[in-house]
């Protein structure tokens, strides 16, 4: 009962509207995004990074809501927190941010089964990032990360990766080498055009497969 209550509280805090108000128009918008993604995805493209130009654009909100929408459609979803600078996925699920991913990638002390944790939502598991360190790119570019993702592909229909904002560091481009595609989040409230252009230009330059964009906090007339 307590666990359920905490998840509900976190749903409000992290704006997981698909869980808190599943019948709302906003939840429908996330479901629409999930359906569109589902149509795009196939057996070969199942690892998606959720990226944005600047912090505060709503990457984690989009990621959580899409994960729940996909899980509702009986997809087995894994969320990986690769935002080493400001990890927050663990808080949405009310879990401790252990050194799981970093520990697993840098040492052999943990097994894959140990770092994958149930989120509390049906069909959704997640992996904590661990605490921030100086150069995340030195870890996530390791071959072991590729191998890990390769192994996880077998167990999940969709793997969504949360990461830090593109213009905050080079992580996104490293992570993109591990992913099949990227979803770009643009917020009506926060994303300035010049930053969005800059970020998309970088993605295109590095040959990232941009699947599409999710436009959040849109004014109600923006149809």
């Amino acid at each position, binding site marked *: 009962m307590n666990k359920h209550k905490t998840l509900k509280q976190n749903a409000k805090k992290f704006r997981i509207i698909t869980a808190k108000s599943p019948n709302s*128009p906003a939840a429908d918008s996330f479901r629409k995004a999930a359906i569109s993604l589902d149509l795009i995805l196939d057996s070969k493209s199942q690892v998606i990074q959720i990226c944005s130009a600047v912090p505060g654009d709503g990457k984690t909100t989009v990621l959580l809501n899409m994960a729940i929408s996909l899980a509702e459609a009986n997809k087995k979803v894994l969320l990986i927190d690769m935002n080493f600078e400001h990890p927050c996925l663990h808080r949405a699920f009310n879990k401790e941010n252990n050194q799981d991913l970093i520990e697993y990638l840098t040492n052999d002390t943990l097994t894959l089964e140990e770092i994958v944790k149930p989120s509390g939502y049906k069909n959704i598991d997640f992996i904590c990032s661990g605490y921030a360190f100086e150069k995340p790119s030195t870890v996530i570019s390791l071959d072991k990360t590729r191998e890990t993702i390769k192994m996880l592909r077998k167990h999940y229909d969709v793997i969504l990766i949360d990461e830090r904002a593109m213009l905050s560091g080079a992580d996104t481009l490293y992570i993109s080498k591990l992913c099949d595609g990227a979803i770009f989040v643009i917020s009506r409230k926060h994303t300035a055009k010049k930053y969005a252009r800059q970020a998309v230009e970088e993605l295109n330059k590095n040959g990232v497969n941009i699947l599409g964009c999710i436009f959040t906090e849109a004014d109600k007339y923006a*149809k």
Partner: protein
Amino acid sequence: MQQYEKNSSEDVIDFLKIFKVFKINIKAVIAIVIVSLIFGIAFSATQKKTYTSTSSMAAMCSGTANDNSPEKYSFSANIAGTFALFIKQDIVINQVSEKTGIPTDTIKESLSSSADKLIINLSYKSEDPKTAQEVLTEIMKVSIDVANSKAEDGLSQYPMFEESLSILSSPSEAKAPSEIKHNMLYALIVGCVLAVLFVGIKWINDDRYKDPAEIETDLNMPVISTVFKYDFEERK
């Protein structure tokens, strides 16, 4: 025809868009108008209150012509116009100044007289309602006395005043000023103009994507979903 229909539709969308831009900024618009009204009220409160007393006189000459003749009417109108000017002359104002102790310049500034056909409208403004009424009474009394005394001296134009003028209404009790209503109206207009300017400038300087179509055009990528602003209490 199709082109025409398309253009008409675009015009309607643009108009709707402008309306909705205001709707989005409605809180700011209301705030600006309210602040403007508050300034209007504050401005009115700082202004000195002026009270106006009014009175009117009629000019109708009693010559030999028939009562309803056009000549008589025209002559009476001329007398009204002349008296409206005469009442502001130094010969009248100086005497009023002596009796009331108010400087002549102040009296000249505060007194207004105009002729409308046969009617002479007089008004006097003062910060004290009683003074306004008393001074206007004095002005009327002195002007008629001066006209009478000049007539006795045999000056040609004055007998006309003596014979023709009658008081229609004595100086009224000075009324409360209506500046606050005018100031509020001006403040409302200024507030609306400022609100329009604010919304317009904000919209023009907004360097963010306003709708999905703009993103698709500018970034050349599909928008797979648009999530509108929401709160957690909203329901279908």
